[in-house]
């Protein structure tokens, strides 16, 4: 480096009286075996957060970007201006959606362990961030989910059998066995096709919202992304486009603390909140207790009303905790303290909603047990039904030729040739007719 400045040697060494620079590599608070103490997590009292007008200037949400919107108190009653004042039937529907999603996750996780499919992802502990929030949207508002929002489909009444067909990649799978399990798509339910590439759905949601505005439609778009994925360029492009065009869109960030084994510090959480990202873009921002179903509902309702009134896009951070592993291919005991889940200071969303309904005198243990049993039974029946269409690797899949369909609208010559080849090969590869893998 003869051309370089003499005091800037690549290998370090003599630096005169200048202090040696130091690199910071984030480290989570607890590793396996550590005792957990979440006292550094500030949990403000429920009901104390102000609720600005939905059409307010984005900067008026500044304090809320560092606060935590909470409705359900320690007494399991709703408090303060963010109380969405939901009636008991809506709350019970929400609880049932929670319970059904949990039962579904439980069964599918087991199904993966039994070899019925290759992969599954539970949303345990995060149910409120998808179910409660999506219940505040209109059923035809378009959602651009990430991979842990199965609760939205369940809340929108998508048949469980269809979901399981997709997970099993069987001949009933509407997606013809092309997508990884849990990467659903349902145009009928305004649920966008899930991508495995992270945060790509965020500018797409903004584009959809822009299109809706260009056409003078009244439907808005909402997207969900994990806190780890906010580091992707797509997320920042999405924020820029959303603010530039005042797109009727909601950007939901699920801060569940863990991106596989990397804690939220690797997405920048040590320096500021994810909601505060909104401020630099001129977006409204809300930081919400993601385990408080009423707060999740209220925040999404606020953002939806704001978008629908052309008052602007909103970034909502749900502060929550991924209670289970990242997926069936992950073992969290290898990187975090097993105690974390128990000690998480914001509790469990299903339990909190259940106790809220009980505090209102609208629910009891008997009904709760009956509901859980019904949900388990409903999932079991759907599983049996879906298994008639096959499970992964058992040959009950879509015909070979479908592999070549939908690459383009029409089959070009080279895909026709390759399709014929695949069908020819089949007879040699699988003389008994059906491939095992």
């Amino acid at each position, binding site marked *: 480096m003869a051309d370089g400045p003499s005091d800037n040697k690549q290998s370090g060494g003599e630096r005169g009286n200048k202090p040696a620079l130091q690199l910071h590599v984030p480290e989570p608070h607890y590793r396996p075996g550590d005792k957990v103490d979440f006292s550094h997590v500030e949990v403000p009292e429920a009901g104390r957060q102000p609720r600005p007008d939905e059409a307010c200037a984005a900067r008026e949400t500044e304090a809320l970007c560092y606060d935590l919107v909470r409705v359900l108190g320690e007494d399991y009653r709703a408090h303060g201006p963010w109380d969405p004042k939901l009636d008991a039937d809506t709350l019970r529907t929400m609880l049932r959606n929670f319970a059904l999603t949990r039962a579904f996750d439980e069964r599918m996780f087991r199904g993966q362990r039994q070899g019925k499919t290759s992969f599954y992802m539970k949303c345990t502990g995060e149910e409120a961030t998808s179910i409660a929030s999506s219940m505040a949207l209109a059923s035809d508002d378009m959602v651009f989910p990430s991979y842990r929002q199965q609760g939205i489909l369940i809340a929108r009444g998508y048949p469980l059998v269809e979901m399981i067909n997709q997970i099993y990649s069987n001949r009933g799978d*509407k*997606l013809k066995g092309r997508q990884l399990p849990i990467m659903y798509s349902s145009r009928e339910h305004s649920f966008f096709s899930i991508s495995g590439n992270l945060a790509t759905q965020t500018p797409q949601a*903004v584009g959809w919202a*822009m*299109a809706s505005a*260009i056409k003078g439609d009244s439907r808005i778009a909402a997207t969900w992304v994990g806190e780890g994925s906010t580091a992707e360029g797509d997320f920042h*492009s999405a924020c820029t*486009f959303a603010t530039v065009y005042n797109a009727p869109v909601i950007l939901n960030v699920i801060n569940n603390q863990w991106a596989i084994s990397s804690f939220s510090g690797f997405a920048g959480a040590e320096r500021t909140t994810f909601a505060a990202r909104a401020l630099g873009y001129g977006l409204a921002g809300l930081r919400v207790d993601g385990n408080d179903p009423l707060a999740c509902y209220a925040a999404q309702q606020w953002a939806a009303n704001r978008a629908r009134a052309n008052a602007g896009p909103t970034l909502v951070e749900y502060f929550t905790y991924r209670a289970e592993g990242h997926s069936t291919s992950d073992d969290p005991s290898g990187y975090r303290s097993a105690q974390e889940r128990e000690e998480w200071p914001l509790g469990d969303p299903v339990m909190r909603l259940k106790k809220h309904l009980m505090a209102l005198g609208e629910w009891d243990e008997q009904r709760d047990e009956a509901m859980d049993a019904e949900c388990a039974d409903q999932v079991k029946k759907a599983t049996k039904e879906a298994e008639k269409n096959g499970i992964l690797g058992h040959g009950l899949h879509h015909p070979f030729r479908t592999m070549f369909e939908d690459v383009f609208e029409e089959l070009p010559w080279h895909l026709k040739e390759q399709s014929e080849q695949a069908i020819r090969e089949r007879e040699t590869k699988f003389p008994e007719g059906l491939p095992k893998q």
Partner: protein
Amino acid sequence: MIEAINDALSIKLDQDPDVIVMGEDVGYFGGVFRATAGLQEKYGKTRVFDTPISECGIIGVAVGMGAYGLRPVPEIQFADYIYPGLDQLISEAARLRYRSAAEYIAPLTVRSPFGGGIFGGQTHSQSPEAIFAHVSGLKTVIPSTPYDAKGLLIAAIEDNDPVIFFEPKRIYNGPFSGYYDKPVEPWKKHEDSVVPEGHYSIPLGKARKVIEGEELTVLAYGTMVHVARAVCEKKGVDADIVDLRTIVPLDIEAIEASVRKTGRCLIVHEATRTSGFGAELSALVTERCFYHLEAPVERVTGFDTPYPHSLEWAYFPGPVRIGEAIDKILSE
């Protein structure tokens, strides 16, 4: 060619309220190459508009618009800038139809000026078409005349698949013989400049016979069609020049018919050589026409270096390189 492109955009904006034109500087100013001049004034700010400098955002937003039901025509100012948008093109636009079993489609047409010859240096001169040809689910179109530019662009916008539409900027204003100091003949005075008014389209996947000949097949697209033609005419070679127009889908019938007739094949493109689209063409010709070949297939391409600024004309695959290759093929 610029006027033909502008005309095609105007026609589609006029005919189809779902067509949206967007990109850096395309609105009020009409684009750095003026391809979108006057369109915002005519069709309004929500149909033709400027975007932030974010190729990932432009393409990602266009995918979302396509999913809604619009037909966005985003412009990427230079093909060299398309890389930040690649994930959205490769993982999203190209595969949306497939992964959703046709529940959602991304019918976008990404327009982008490409190729060298204007002293654009390494970041305003590249020809990245091979990257897109390698991706399942994208169509790649490269016109070489104003007539084709208009007809192919209209077809691309009407197509329900995502299309990359590369505009060879060296020939925006006229064809080009390959000699850097030779003045460009304006399209207005050129035989290929006749562009009918109104709507017409050219199907994607159909090549154009530039000139008929018996001695040699030249496979080319974009700028190189004109350079190859000028060389063949100057050398008096009786060449069969096939302008591919679209490299995906590819007109394999036209290629096979020509090579079987002439028995000799030269492939010319401006992009770098290794793993370029010429390699694919060479393999296809060898696989499908081997027993008709009287000489090895030759490729004339750019060099495997970044596009240089001051040595641009040493890099450019011009008449000398093409002439040598023709001599070699014909001498076999």
